């Protein structure tokens, strides 16, 4: 049996990685912009402000 892969992503994906060994969150917008936060609500605010990431 094969491992189930989640559905293939489209081009409009916001991604947040919790950086291992830290409390930091690294956000990556589908436009390529990247930013860091320590609060997930602020991280989503920053990402979803696309294209105005500031």
């Amino acid at each position: 049996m094969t491992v189930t892969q989640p559905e293939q992503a489209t081009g409009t994906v916001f991604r947040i990685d919790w950086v291992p060994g830290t409390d930091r969150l690294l956000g990556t917008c589908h436009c390529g912009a990247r930013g860091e936060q320590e609060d997930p609500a602020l991280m989503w605010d920053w990402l979803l402000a696309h294209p105005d990431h500031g």
Partner: protein
Amino acid sequence: MTFVRNQWYVAAYATELGRNLLARTILGEPIVLFRANSGRPVALADRCVHRHYPLSQSQLVENTIVCGYHGFTYGTDGRCVAVPGQQRIPRTARVTCYPVAELDSFVWVWIGDPDRADATLIPRAPWLADGRYTTVAGMEPLAARYGLLVDNLLDLSHETYLHGGYIGTPEVADTPITTEVDEERGIIRVSRRMADAACPPFYAQSTGITGRIVRWQDIEYHPPCLYLLHSRVAPAGVLPSPDGTDPDGFHVEVVYAITPSTGTSTYDFWAVARDFALGDEAVSTFLHDSNRTVVLQDVAALNTLEQVVAAEPPGLQELSINIDTGGLAARRMLARMAAGEPAPVPAAAR
């Protein structure tokens, strides 16, 4: 909490429907479900137009429901075909007929504008009706708003504390997650990959693994209703082959359908499909009983939380931390959908 209309919701398991009348309330709408003579599933409003008697407490006669109060008789399209004592059937005598689809062992009902019902929008859980898997399943009614169950399932770190001794181990809460929001397709993914974790009884007893494990939890939430957890366990150090085959891994597809009933109650459909110990009744019984126990632990906690939340003033501040990244994403997407923004485009339509 606001409902998301113009969406498909799981109303029942296909096995629940027959020549009986099944009552379910979905998004506040009372619905009666049954199978027509042909076997086709039918969903009608569960209130007679006359005095609003529940049709689910009436009689199914061939392809009609005869109201148990005064005999108003409805066809499978919801149209009234007979009223007592007179020839003329009032023009407005019909009950709502809901679009229905039977897929992957579920009966899905469209709640909203029937002209927008498109069965290709239904997210899939193919393992539940696939002979290469053995599935156990159930449904537990929850006396809590559906958003509490969404929060619960999107943050599995609670397994460590609420489900210790069943599916929780310390590594679940300790392992960082990756979260993705696929805006176009309307999917939230949360991934937690544990390289060296204790094996909880749920997996130790069902797979026979005695030592530590690799444990992957890949969540795929298709809001509002379908939640998939692709779970992979294997002895520590054992990974899939580069070509994706995984002969030494154990795969469990955990499926939840989160169907709001009223503003403070929810149907918690759950299923566990595995690709090992196929047909083994002892393993099936163990996984069924264990998962039901876990679900009932969630039900007890969320029922308590509903009482707390209902008594709080609106807008009371919460505190979110990293483990909540997926849950916050789900809340945002549900709020946007409830506000009436366009539904995501199904993969097949692109």
